[in-house]
């Protein structure tokens, strides 16, 4: 099938005609600055892409607000005019939005600024900025608009904010990387989904968590466990008398199986959790029922299940597949027939569900991360993150009505192309996954995988972050890949994608993108960079114990070679392991090559019995705590 992006005439920057056009435009227009930005060093920066990631409707359905993470802006799209009519700048990396019940205020979470921008929807100006926890993403107000709930993806908690005063009232403990927040239709609950699962034994399947907050008391009412899945995404609640249940997209890994085993559903499936919340929010034992269904077909997978929305009558549910550039439309009547006809225990592994319940598969542009349905139920808007556009669907015909260009740069740079490749599952056998599937937010999925050996359970390795890794070669835990070209080229093709993989141009773009992945500021460091007393003591221990021998500061705290630090288990072929970089290490649990250490402390309390990973057995608990506090500043 021809890809949607190709069908719509995406241009590649290497196209001679495009290059010529750019040159001509530059020469003919002395004042031209185009969409490119020039950074302070004077070198040309990337074209000004918007990268829309989330959308919310105004209560009257006239305006659609769109958060654009690479442009640090929010757009207002007039859906009658089908174009952008307003724009305002917000904080760094806006990720999500919430509209007050009266429609007068728009809240935007700024993930890298640790703030929420409060925007007057009439003037479309930022009225004030509220401080949040670390890495704010999903957010919602309560039904009266008095309380604002913000999921802090890096702090792993939820800020509860008085929206009138901007005062943070409390923080509620979430699980790991809480990203999405949804107020229940009756206003009694606030749901929070976590991208990463519970930290557990690498021998066990992951268990994810949907957090439920009692909106009256602003306390945690329930933690709904969803076994066997990762990357819980948007939360949609079915409306109407037949409603009351939630759909939460997920990824279902079979990370304990050898990756080279392709049969039996291979290693990754994608679907939604169906959650029927408890009738009462008693705050103790969970009574919620959770069922899982897959949205993949048996020979074609739909990776990156992400956005979720219902039509107002609850008849249809729309799920975006961010890595398959597709929207699946579920007929909920068929869904319930399916749920009644197949035992719930069997459903998570059944690849014949989608053909029973999915009535449309609609192509979108690159990386559709969100979908919203207009209040009148006549249209759905899909946010195409890497295309700076919206795809508009007619309901209930479910035909593509139009594309709305949000106004970003039109030329596709190498980096942008690389980013698209990173988020595109079509290069994998049957479209099962993309790079981003296991590296959400260019980071980790928090589980250990059996990657390259055919034996069950051997040489299992934890996923490593892709942030700020350009200068940390070699790659892989065994250090066998000298560069990213090897890692992302033949190795991925052979061992991971089971396909031809990327061609040389694509590989260059992909590698360029991965090398460009930035890292956010360190939340454990004070603004002036001064260490606390505990951090200073920890720094002294770090150097006194010669940790810098293998983790030298000048090279991202990796010596870029391999050592045997006694962490190999009986399942490992070799104890010689690549020294990992330590930048933002507090964001990366679990630790060690096999993901055995659930915390930094466990590296030394449990997995350094012979002092090969530094002489630490003589350290007091106070010293270990200090060392951990210092490591968190890196």
């Amino acid at each position, binding site marked *: 099938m021809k890809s949607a992006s190709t069908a719509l005439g995406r241009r590649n920057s290497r196209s001679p005609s495009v290059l010529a056009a750019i040159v001509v435009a530059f020469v003919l227009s002395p004042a031209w600055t185009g969409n490119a930005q020039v950074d302070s060093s004077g070198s040309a920066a990337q074209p000004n892409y918007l990268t829309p990631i989330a959308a919310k409707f105004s209560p009257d359905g006239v305006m659609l607000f769109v958060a654009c993470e690479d442009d640090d802006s929010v757009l207002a799209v007039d859906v009658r005019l089908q174009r952008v009519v307003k724009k305002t700048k917000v904080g760094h990396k806006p990720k999500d939005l919430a509209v007050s019940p009266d429609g007068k205020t728009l809240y935007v979470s700024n993930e890298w600024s640790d703030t929420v921008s409060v925007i007057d929807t009439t003037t479309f100006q930022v009225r004030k900025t509220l401080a949040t926890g670390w890495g704010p993403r999903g957010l919602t107000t309560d039904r009266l608009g008095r309380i604002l709930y913000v999921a802090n993806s890096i702090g792993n908690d939820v800020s509860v904010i008085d929206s009138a005063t901007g005062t943070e009232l409390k923080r509620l403990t979430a699980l790991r990387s809480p990203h999405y927040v949804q107020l229940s239709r009756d206003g009694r609950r606030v749901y929070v989904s976590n991208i990463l699962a519970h930290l557990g034994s690498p021998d066990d399947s992951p268990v994810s968590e949907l957090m439920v907050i009692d909106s009256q008391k602003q306390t945690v009412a329930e933690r709904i466990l969803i076994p066997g899945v990762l990357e819980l995404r948007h939360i949609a609640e079915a409306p109407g008398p037949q409603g009351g249940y939630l759909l939460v997209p997920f990824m279902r890994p079979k990370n304990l199986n050898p990756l080279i085993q392709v049969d039996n559903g291979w290693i990754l499936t994608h679907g939604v959790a169906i959650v029927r919340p408890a009738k009462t929010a008693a705050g103790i034992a*969970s009574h919620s029922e959770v069922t899982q269904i897959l949205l993949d077909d048996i020979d074609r997978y739909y990776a990156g299940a992400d956005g979720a929305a219902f039509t107002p009558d609850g008849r249809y549910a729309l799920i975006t597949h961010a890595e398959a550039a597709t929207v699946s439309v579920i007929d909920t009547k068929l869904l319930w027939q399916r749920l009644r006809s197949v035992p719930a225990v069997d459903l998570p592994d059944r690849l014949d569900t989608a053909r029973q319940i999915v009535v449309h598969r609609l192509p979108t542009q690159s990386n559709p991360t969100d979908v919203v349905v207009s209040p009148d139920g006549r249209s759905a808007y899909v946010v195409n993150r890497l295309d700076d556009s919206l795809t508009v669907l007619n309901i209930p015909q479910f035909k593509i009505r139009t594309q709305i260009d949000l106004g970003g740069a039109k030329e596709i740079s190498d980096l942008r192309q690389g980013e698209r490749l990173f988020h595109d599952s079509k290069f994998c056998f049957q479209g099962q996954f993309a790079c981003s599937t296991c590296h959400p937010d260019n980071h980790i999925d928090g589980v250990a995988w059996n990657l390259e050996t055919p034996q069950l359970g051997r040489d299992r390795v934890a996923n490593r972050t892709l942030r700020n890794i350009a200068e940390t070669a070699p790659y892989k835990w065994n250090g066998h890949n000298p560069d990213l070209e090897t890692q992302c080229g033949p190795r991925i093709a052979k061992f991971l994608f089971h396909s031809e993989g990327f061609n040389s141009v694509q590989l260059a773009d992909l590698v360029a993108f991965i090398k460009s992945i930035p890292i956010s500021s360190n939340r454990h460091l004070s603004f002036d960079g001064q260490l606390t007393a505990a951090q200073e003591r920890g720094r002294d221990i770090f150097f006194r114990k010669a940790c810098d021998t293998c983790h030298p500061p000048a090279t991202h705290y990796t010596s870029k070679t391999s050592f045997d630090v006694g962490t190999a288990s009986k399942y490992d072929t070799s104890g010689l392991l690549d020294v990992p970089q330590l930048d933002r290490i507090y964001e990366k649990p679990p630790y060690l090559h096999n993901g055995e250490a659930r915390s930094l402390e*466990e590296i030394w309390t449990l997995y350094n019995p012979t002092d090969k990973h530094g002489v630490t057995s003589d350290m007091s*608990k106070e010293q270990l705590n200090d060392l*951990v506090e210092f490591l968190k500043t890196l």
Partner: protein
Amino acid sequence: MRNTQRIRWLLAVVGFLWFMPSVPAQTPALYTKWENFTTANGMPDAKVFSVAVDGERVWAGTENGLVLIENSKVSKVFTTADGLPNRVVTGIAVDQKTGDVWLSTFGGLSQFSGGKFQNYTSMTTGLANDIVYGVAIQDDFVWAATTAGINRLNTRTGEWSIFSEKTAPMHEPWSYGIAVGEQKVYVAVWGGGVLEYDIAGGYWKPYNDPDGEMELVLFKNQGLIHDIVSGVSYNHDTKMFWASTYFGMSGYNGHNWFNYLSTDSGLASDFVNATQTRGDDVWACTDKGLSYLNFKTNTWVTYRPNKGTGKGEIVITAPDKKLTKIETPTSLAHNYVLNLAFQGEDIWVATAAGLSHGIHESHKEGKSHEQARASR
């Protein structure tokens, strides 16, 4: 009113006063009705170490699990199979802001939130030791008293601080209890007296037996009565902290000490496991019953079961040492009392043989806590 009627009325009043039970003029609130939760009606173990009230809910930490009591019934028992890190639950603190319940156990610290336990151990986190005796909440910080020192967890940053003999003025790290005061945190240290942490300043101040000889204070109100401190509580009404020791009880208001022994007061025993206070009320949990002191009137009341009759016994000690005994049809589950919590005017008492609920009956009893507070 005719004279004869007046005389009859006057005789009736005099007669009532003449024949009424001989109780002190300033009788404190008495708990004459007790409801006990034991292994016979749902408790998983006889020994109850800790109790905490969370609105209508009552949490009890036993030697074999955590108990939730709702509507006068044991509604749920949580064990290690439910995720509790250890069967012995020594302390309970309810975070009033978040609703989370924090537990000190013999297997680490635990956060009960949304029906699930999140556990913190010395292997996985910065917790000093897994034997944790006490827990308290101070804003966004969780304090834990362990056998290897005092821990403070910053729930926003995840930073663990340890205060031990290496970093605080304590020659013994074994800590028993924690109480949060006005910009201060108080810690009961076994053999180390009471430590006071200044939150703003970030420094410790020790309160010890002034003669420094690990013996009883030489003069009655010279200082902390003894260094072997089993518990500490803070009274936000009177701005005093109270320390229970195995050799008497002490209160301190920032200027003066108020020490009590069983020999010179109505305290049931010098072996005091814990104190809880509010308003003028000071409660002492001893091995020989539950003692109450009205600090304002210096009137004492001790509650204990009568082994012989199976009924309850209330002993009132007036300021002039005059004793009054009252028998009640119900009583505490046991005279070995470990802790206590307030629920409105009711009290919940952890004993060695069950959890006891002292039910306030206003028509039978003296001035309530709220009334006393209002009239202060």
